[in-house]
């Protein structure tokens, strides 16, 4: 008996859920995956933020009186681990990378769509496992750095769960890196040359190289650490003849590049946002590319500047000082180029632009303290103090998180087809900037004057400054509210955005908002000048030297 189907169906049978259900499914669409990353990441940001709130609440008084001491250590461990591995790395890489890269190379999707979905779906279980360890068995309490012997002597279950979680998250990151490298190098549409790609592609290529080279070393190290914990080997256990400094070398071999994994994509995103809202080309495209490559190479050979006070001999300390200081040069070039992009522009002072400028201010401060920290004699005094805490928060929050917010304001219209409310956005920016600087600015002084990090109690002379810092943290928490309201309300009833509300030139804006499943109706556009903004200077009265004579675009 045969069954005959009706001769015409109105729509083809669907293999995957549609509508909002897509976002809870194993979708292989890079746009869906990108948004899954961003929402999941933001949830973990709120969790990490709550953990930070707990820390700052404890630190409003100089005694340990808010939570039990071992709980405090669990909280600070989870705060760092969640923010790094579940918020920043997944969002600047997985969220924006997956959403934008196929558009930028003129492809319909990433090179390996199913691997993409696998990479995302590793994250929620790993994160869930990590968070629930706090409630079920006690979380790890040796810091996100998990130095042995402390990580071998604290309760084992929490530490092993931490290790498993980080291994899964590292695996996710590696799968993403493989995908980005293949997509950028192999999936460019015909006619699109490498040096015509938007800068974010170069940033992601460099980042993914770092991911592929350094994350596996962390994986191996954590495997060895887990052997020490469960199998009584002695890799890093001095009682059994081991060497704890070797752990530190292996750990930081990944964890220093990790900071570039968190920051280079942010650099790329800023390079996309500034030209659009300043209506000027990105300044110095070629040098920006070389700077990224220099940062990638240098970033792999500076890890031991995290170990200046450890078991490191003088010659090693000297080498790493010099290598680290050099990274300031390509990084500085990028900042000067961004300033030059703004100079002479027609700048719209919208939320995306303001957050990007906040990034510039904060990151320059963080970069300056970074150059200081690179110098061995300076670092010896401030290592493992609140000076370092201030420095890296200026980089990861003042840097990457500010860029994430800028990017959300910039691309939300594309993701959802609606515009965000600008007044709420500027309020969000102001509250975040003030709160952030109030929280972390004074911490530089705390470190210089004797307050170590990872403590629940401190010398009472530091009470007032700590309380100011905690007020700043409270402001940061409050600043999330206008943002959340804005995102949700605008999704439901914001003004329609249209294809290209910013009149931008890169390929994602040359299609509908939100884009169709295959990114464009018809062929992918060939954008040879992604930064072709601006009025040619020969049409204006200019006395300054014109760059166009010296640099020709790749036409």
């Amino acid at each position, binding site marked *: 008996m045969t069954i005959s189907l009706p001769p015409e169906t109105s729509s083809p049978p669907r293999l995957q859920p549609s509508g909002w259900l897509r976002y809870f499914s194993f979708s292989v669409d890079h746009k869906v995956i990108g948004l899954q990353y961003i929402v999941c990441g933001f949830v973990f940001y709120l969790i990490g933020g709550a953990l930070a709130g707990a820390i700052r609440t404890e630190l409003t008084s100089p005694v340990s009186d808010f939570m039990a001491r071992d709980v405090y250590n669990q909280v600070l461990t989870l705060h760092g681990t969640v923010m790094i591995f579940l918020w920043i790395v997944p969002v600047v890489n997985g969220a924006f990378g997956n959403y934008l890269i196929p558009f930028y190379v003129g492809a319909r999707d990433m090179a390996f769509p199913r691997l993409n979905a696998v990479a995302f779906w590793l994250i929620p279980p790993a994160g869930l496992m990590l968070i629930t360890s706090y409630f079920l068995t006690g979380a790890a309490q040796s810091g996100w750095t998990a130095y042995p012997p402390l990580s071998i002597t604290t309760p084992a279950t929490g530490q092993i769960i931490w290790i498993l979680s980080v291994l899964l998250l590292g695996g996710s990151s590696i799968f993403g890196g493989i995908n980005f490298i293949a997509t950028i190098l192999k999936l460019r549409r015909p006619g699109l040359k490498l040096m015509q790609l938007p800068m974010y592609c170069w940033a992601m290529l460099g980042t993914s190289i770092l991911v592929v080279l350094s994350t596996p070393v962390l994986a191996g190290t954590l495997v060895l650490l887990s052997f020490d914990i469960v199998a009584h080997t002695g890799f890093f256990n*001095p009682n059994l003849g081991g060497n704890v400094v070797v752990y530190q070398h292996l750990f930081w071999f990944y964890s220093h590049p990790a900071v570039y994994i968190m920051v280079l994509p942010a650099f790329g995103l800023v390079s996309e946002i500034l030209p659009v809202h300043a*209506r000027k080309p990105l300044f110095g495209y070629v040098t920006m590319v070389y700077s990224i490559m220099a940062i990638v190479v240098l970033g792999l050979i500076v890890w031991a500047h995290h170990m200046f006070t450890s078991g490191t001999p*003088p010659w090693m300390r000297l080498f790493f000082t010099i290598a680290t200081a050099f990274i300031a040069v390509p990084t500085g070039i990028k900042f000067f180029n961004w300033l030059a992009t703004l100079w002479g522009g027609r700048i719209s002072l919208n939320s995306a632009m303001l957050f990007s400028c906040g990034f510039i201010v904060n990151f320059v401060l963080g970069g300056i303290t970074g150059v*200081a920290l690179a110098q*061995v004699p300076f670092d010896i005094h401030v290592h493992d103090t609140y000076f370092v805490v201030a420095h890296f928060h200026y980089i990861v929050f003042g840097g990457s998180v500010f860029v994430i917010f800028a990017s959300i304001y910039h691309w939300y219209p594309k993701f959802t087809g609606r515009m965000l409310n600008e007044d709420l956005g500027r309020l969000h920016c102001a509250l975040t900037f003030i709160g952030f600087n109030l929280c972390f600015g004074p911490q530089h002084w705390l470190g210089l004057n004797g307050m170590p990090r990872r403590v629940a*109690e401190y010398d009472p002379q530091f009470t007032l400054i700590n309380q100011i810092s905690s007020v700043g943290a409270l402001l940061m928490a409050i600043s999330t509210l206008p943002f959340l309201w804005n995102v949700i309300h605008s999704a439901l009833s914001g003004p329609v955005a249209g294809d290209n509300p910013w009149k931008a030139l890169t390929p994602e804006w040359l299609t509908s908002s939100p884009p169709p499943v295959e990114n464009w109706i018809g062929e992918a556009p060939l954008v040879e000048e992604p930064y072709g903004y601006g*009025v040619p200077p020969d049409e204006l009265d200019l006395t300054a030297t014109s760059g166009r004579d010296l640099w020709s675009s790749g036409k």
Partner: protein
Amino acid sequence: MQIPSAILTLVIGMVLALGGLWIGQNINLLPIDASANAPIYDELFKVLFTIGSILFIGIVGLLVFSLIRFRRRNGQLGDGLAIEGNLPLEIFWTAVPAVVVLFVGLYSYDIYDRMGGMVPLAHDHMGGAHDEQIWGGISSGSIESAAATNALPVEVTAMQFAFLFHYPEGDITSGELHVPADRPITLRMEAKDVIHAFWVPEFRLKQDVIPGQPTQLSFTPTRTGRYPIVCAELCGPYHGGMRSTVVVESPENWESWYRDNAKAAPEDETLTIANA
């Protein structure tokens, strides 16, 4: 007639530089200095603070100026200038930071050397037993001066959650570090359980104290007083409470403390904790 932008830039640059110098010299963010290397450290700090202030104020100033001067006014359509690059300018702002960074690096090498940081650590492969090896730290003396004579050796043991100080000459064990001013001190440090760190902010010195891998810290105290010793490596729940005190005394007062607490005979078995 408009002031040429070159002159404006020059004046702004000079104001910035002078301002940065003033900030570095006059804004004091550090605690008091109590060891011979601390003023050397503070010199470096001032230089870094000056350079940092100039850079930060300059860049933020440029940014704020751009946001105001080049902002889009109401009703303005159209783009900014289509300037894609300027090779001489880019070479300039590559070379200048490279030179600054090189200068800072060489200068801080000099500072580290004057602090004694470049002297090779004691290291004895031939001895076989690994407790001859010093794994990290700052050795006594510096490259220019001869190795410090008359250095007072102290053995530091760090454990969860206290520091213990043992004076091998005189067999004194104490919970506080008593040292005479103006005499070189050499700390040989080892931990009993997990990694700790020995930090005296007023000395500007810190060294991790590692189990199974001894480290060294050498310094010369210069100012009498009581200064905190802070553990600066997460070592467990009471890490925040792990503190001690370094008591810098005049040589005479220190001598009398030493005499009061030193063991009369080396065979004396009882371990008495020294008077504070």
